[in-house]
């Protein structure tokens, strides 16, 4: 959506809220169609991840065998010592850093800094790909140790099932995000966002809002990881 006119005398706080909801045309006055759609999609996706995590928690609480000790299972053997959660700590650090570069890309986008925006988005995509790469390493290591969806040597068989399902679903989200980061960054790099006309993923000349919408998705995937980290690895 292009720039829009707005009454400037909108009251703040609860009065403004009531005014917006009882107004015509748009309920969220400063929100474009695309951004509204992304927010509502993320709300729906929140339910998907919440239910995945609740399903995992109920399985963990009701299973008859003992749950594996996660700090042992997820430890890395580095320099003669087992360091619990080392890989996960690095992965989390990488993903949260990528949220930082994404936020900077959004800021540069609003400043219409074409190359800086595209560059930061490429960097975000690189960090995201690094995260997925480390996840592949983690999966490989666990599979070599005998963890399977239907069983594992450490304890309850729901451990492997939940692990592969939830981290796989999250990793898919990250991968899709990386893909779209690269697509949008490339379009920006080529200057497509500065030319007039609506095309796929872009509304109008100089409108870099797609960067922010991409950012919403990316921060959401990051936030979901924090919950997976807390409930799966730390519990």
């Amino acid at each position, binding site marked *: 959506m292009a720039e*829009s006119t707005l009454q400037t005398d909108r009251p703040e706080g609860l009065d403004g809220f009531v005014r917006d909801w009882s107004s*015509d045309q*748009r309920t969220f006055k400063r929100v474009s169609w695309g951004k509204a759609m992304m927010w509502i999609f993320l709300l729906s996706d929140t339910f998907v991840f919440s239910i995945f995590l609740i399903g995992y928690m109920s*399985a963990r609480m009701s299973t008859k065998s003992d749950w594996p000790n996660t700090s042992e299972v997820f430890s890395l053997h580095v320099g003669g010592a087992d360091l619990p959660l080392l890989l996960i700590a690095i992965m989390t650090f990488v993903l949260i850093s990528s949220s930082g570069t994404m936020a900077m890309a959004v800021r540069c986008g609003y400043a219409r800094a074409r190359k800086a925006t595209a560059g930061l988005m490429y960097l975000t995509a690189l960090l995201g790909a690094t995260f997925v790469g480390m996840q592949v390493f983690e999966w490989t290591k666990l599979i070599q140790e005998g963890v399977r969806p239907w069983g594992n040597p450490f304890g309850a*068989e729901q451990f492997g099932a939940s692990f592969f*399902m939830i981290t796989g679903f999250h990793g898919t989200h990250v991968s899709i995000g990386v893909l779209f980061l690269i697509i949008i960054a490339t379009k920006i790099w080529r200057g497509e966002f500065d030319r007039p006309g609506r095309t796929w993923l872009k509304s109008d000349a100089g409108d870099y809002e797609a960067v922010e919408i991409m950012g919403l998705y990316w921060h959401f995937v990051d936030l979901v990881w924090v919950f997976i980290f807390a409930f799966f690895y730390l519990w």
Partner: protein
Amino acid sequence: MANIPYRPDEQVPPAEVPDVHPPHPHTWIGRWVFSQDAKYIAIQYSATAIAIGLVALVLSWLVRLQLGFPDVFSFSAEAYYQFITMHGMIMVIYLLTAIFLGGFGNYLIPLMVGARDMVFPFVNMLSYWVYLLAVLVLVASFFVPGGPTGAGWTLYPPQAILSGTPGGQDAGIILMLLSLILFIIGFTMGGLNYVVTVLQARTRGMTLMRMPLTVWGIFTATVMALLAFPALFVACVMMLFDRLLGTSFFMPTLVEMGEQLSYGGGSPIVFQHLFWFFGHPEVYIVALPAFGIVSDLISVHARKNVFGYRMMVWAIVIIGALSFIVWAHHMYVSGMHPYFGFFFATTTLIIAVPTAIKVYNWLLTLWRGDIHLTLPMLFALSFVVTFVNGGLTGLFLGNVVVDVPLSDTMFVVAHFHMVMGVAPLMVIFGAIYHWHPLMTGRMLNEAMGQIHFWVTFIGTYAIFFPMHYVGLVGVPRRYPEIGDPAFITTPVDGLNAFISIAAFIVGAAQILFLFNIAWSARNGRDAGGNPWRAASLEWQTPQTPPRHGNWADDLPVVYRWAYDYSVPGAPEDFIAQDDPWVQQTAPT
């Protein structure tokens, strides 16, 4: 209606966003196959839903052949389970949900809120094609070895994926789960469109509280669906893993044919919770659009404003919210703690309050109205009656102690067919009779419509009223043939045969209805622009049927709500929403 005053002095706010014209297709395929016009997508959705619904209708005939005449038509138990499973799943998901949201939602939302199209037409188009793919995967399960799944429409594990159930160890259950996952993905794409269009793409003057109740019902149902379908999505993914990868999310340790399976430690009850966390909101995902549409039909055809419009809106929203905390009333016999049962019985009965508000308001809308017994009105009235009848048995089943003996009897089958089978279908019929002139420019044939209505209305009662009794005397559901057990003291063979014959006649009437649609599209009486003289915006388009883009060069400006019927002093007995008419002198 005193609380919705005219505000003639109030200026309509200026346009906040530029008028976006949807891109016009240049190719034949872009116009007629991969159309991005919400109206065309709506018709694609409806046609697909009705086509797959016909399959479900035939399946119900096969079920009734078995139940009514077990000596003559003896299907195998496996085939019977496949019939009831596919009948239920198709009717609930692929017909009712798809036609209300994908069909009526797509057609009516942009027209009723004064938009040119959905906000993202391309995503909207994808939604239909993913839905079609889901339907094709579903249909494919009829042709794979072992046939479709026979797990019951609730797909309860562990039996759903074991070899004793038809399709359990064959491809049937896999295709069912894949089809549901596809349906949810497709629905999400459409649903996001509907919600954003209602929230962010209304025309000037169209406030939320001026929207027709149809839009409110579809909007609330869509929001609910976006929050409830995730539970089904996750349940399907987990069960698919149980079946394909050998995980044990829902599978306890069990012995099959004297052999211990490799499953262990999972909980089938978790699936039931996930399924019904979707399944109960699903009831209202189907019911709320019906509530909204029926309010509009009653108002238009009784020439009277909806009684208590604001209460009607809030009742829709409250029912939508409450329906997320009642799901476990489907699980009273799963061995849940009595206090949980108490909680869920309480919330279930609380839903009766906003629902009763709606029923009273429909009656008060009719009260002293100028009732035209047109076909849409007949169907709307039959909905109110049927919904009340079905709802009353819901009060029985919502209470734990009454539900326990009635659970898994034909009483339950009769209850949910009345309340979420027949009642919403009546609204769909009424809505098609009402909006067919808008979609095609021609009226449906009245004589065929009258036959269709009376056979359907009386016939469904002939089917489902005796079925309550069959259930009360103790006939369990899901049995192809019960023989002559000692616990059933009253023989019901005659009743079962009667129900079956009624079911065949009602089914045949639906064929007449489809013939009427096809016949009237070419030969129907010319409808003109606004045959029902309705005030809401969809009838005020420059052309009937509306062209791509819906409106002429300028978007309509809305000055009033959708229910200005029989206003004293007005030149006609309705005032269109985009009519700036103002009462010049105060009525004495």
